């Protein structure tokens, strides 16, 4: 962990004499945050880990039964599979789009308005985005005037699906992913713009003199130079996508084959009163997010010139 190593380096080297005043200051300054974190985060996380190997009301240990339930129940397996799809498709598409947008906006002055329009979805809640995209996906039967833009475009193309778009498996999951991609591309654009601006000007000039322009400049100079940032961006979006909840909850509530782990976890916890299963699903989210972060740290650490 690069960040941690650099923190160690700035810790005060010489230990000052510990005075009662310093101890009091430490208790006052660090105490509240530490107490809150222990009671509100550390202990609950351990309780959830423990709960994942207990039964529905937490009264007896059941070994790995809850994880077995996740792997053998059709609905839970569907959630697992969909979440895996989210974790792969969304970061790849959003990072690619973010890179395209960052390049498009790079170095151009008077781009404040387009920039704002492209980044705005970042600030819109997933629920708000679900309402906006719900309008796009709104469906009317063939022969009626279409109200949603998707239906309108489809009927121009001669496609009139008698079902509503969000009921049509497996494409409905893709339609939900579009909403997340729409939101996360802005975040990717922000991160990659910073990375592109950090490429030294002389590198670009030297490459230009060597004839690297257009596609060559992009593929042979820019992409290798920001490889670390691309990986960081993709893994962060992947970690967000593993935890996707709001969009699925608001648009389909996990019905019609769109269930994901976070929504199943919430349903098991608060509607089905299955604390054990819910905790097991939370553990799966933890492992999923953890895997992304480990991947992230491994790849970034090997990067020359990347912080």
């Amino acid at each position, binding site marked *: 962990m690069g960040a941690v190593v650099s923190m160690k380096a700035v810790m005060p080297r010489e230990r000052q004499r510990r005075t009662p005043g310093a101890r009091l200051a430490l208790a006052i300054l660090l105490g509240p945050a530490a107490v809150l974190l222990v009671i509100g985060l550390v202990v609950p996380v351990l309780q959830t880990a423990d709960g994942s190997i207990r039964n529905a009301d937490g009264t007896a240990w059941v070994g790995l039964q809850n994880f077995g339930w996740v792997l053998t129940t059709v609905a839970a397996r569907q959630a697992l599979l969909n979440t895996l799809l989210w974790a792969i498709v969304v970061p790849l598409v959003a990072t690619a789009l973010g890179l395209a947008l960052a390049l498009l906006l790079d170095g151009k002055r008077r781009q404040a308005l*387009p920039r704002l*329009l492209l980044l705005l979805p970042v*600030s819109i809640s997933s629920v708000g985005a679900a309402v906006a995209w719900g309008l796009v996906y709104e469906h009317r039967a063939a022969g009626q005037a279409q*109200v949603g833009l998707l239906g309108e475009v489809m009927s121009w193309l001669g496609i009139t699906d008698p079902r509503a778009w969000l009921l049509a498996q497996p494409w409905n999951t893709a339609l939900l992913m579009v909403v997340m991609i729409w939101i996360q591309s802005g975040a990717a654009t922000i991160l990659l713009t910073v990375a592109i601006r950090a490429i030294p000007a002389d590198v670009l000039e030297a490459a230009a003199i060597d004839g690297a322009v257009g596609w060559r400049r992009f593929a042979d100079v820019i992409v290798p130079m920001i490889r670390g940032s691309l990986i960081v961006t993709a893994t962060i979006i992947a970690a967000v996508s593993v935890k996707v909840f709001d969009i699925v909850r608001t648009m389909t509530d996990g019905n019609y084959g769109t269930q994901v782990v976070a929504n199943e976890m919430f349903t098991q916890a608060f509607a089905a009163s299955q604390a054990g299963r819910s905790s097991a699903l939370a553990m799966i989210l933890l492992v999923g997010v953890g895997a992304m972060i480990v991947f992230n740290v491994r790849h970034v650490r090997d990067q020359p010139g990347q912080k």
Partner: protein
Amino acid sequence: MSGPVALAARRRLSRPVVTVCIVVVSVAWSIPTMGLLVTSLRPRTLAQSSGWWTILADPRLTLDNYRAALTPGSMTPDGALPYLLNSVAITVPAVVLPLALGCMAAYALAWIPFRGSTAVLLVVVGLQVVPLQMALLPLARLFGQGWSIGAVPILPSMDLGGSYLPLWAAHTVFALPLAIYLLHGFISIMPRDVLQAARIDGAGHLRILTGIVIPMCLPAMGAFAVLQFIWVWNDLLVALTFAGTSPRVVPITAYLASVKATSAGDLGRIAALGCIAILIPVLVFAIWQRTFARALVAGSVKG
């Protein structure tokens, strides 16, 4: 032919193409939000029966949907306003508390030497990546039933139904690791000389924190505040878990989700409610876009 000249020539050539691309892409990107806005301004029956793009053929606009969304008893018994106020009442303390506590903790970790400070920092960095789902159920139980080890009650059960407190506490706890991490990165690289000079002049830690550290750290605090404000305002998961269904607590985002679930067919009014719900974070973002970007970048470098 010299390179830079060729490059400049190529740039000049491609500039109009790029400009057209930018315009097309940013218009396309805005379609969902534009559709939401236009739908919210169309008469209710029109919004239900024709696409918003027919506005060009039938340019009737009205604020009726907004009136319906805000008036008690029209769309829901309470209207949107109490929920909007709940969002403010939840979000402001949920930004200020982690900022204050995080600043104090970050200073202590950076400038008060004690055994185990590196370990504490490592735990904080680790906690950042823990999905909040890992804490939801035990926290909900904690607020509902209190906490005891065996038969020994450590914390009494709290009757917090209809109170903002669980939401403030949950948002604060979930934000603290990032707050401490971001601010520590900033505070730990402050010039040692300045802080030491203050120590020599007899200033205690609290005086240094409020007099030197916080003023110097305002940009970082502002960046975290913008990020946290948008995150809390837009949150659904924490609200669903800790706010219940009481109109005295539920924030606007969760309210929008529940209204969408019950009256999804009422397109014009739902769209108006959607616009009401996203207005404030969108404004905050539009005003502090650079600050937000800075926080996002700082937060992403975490290991």
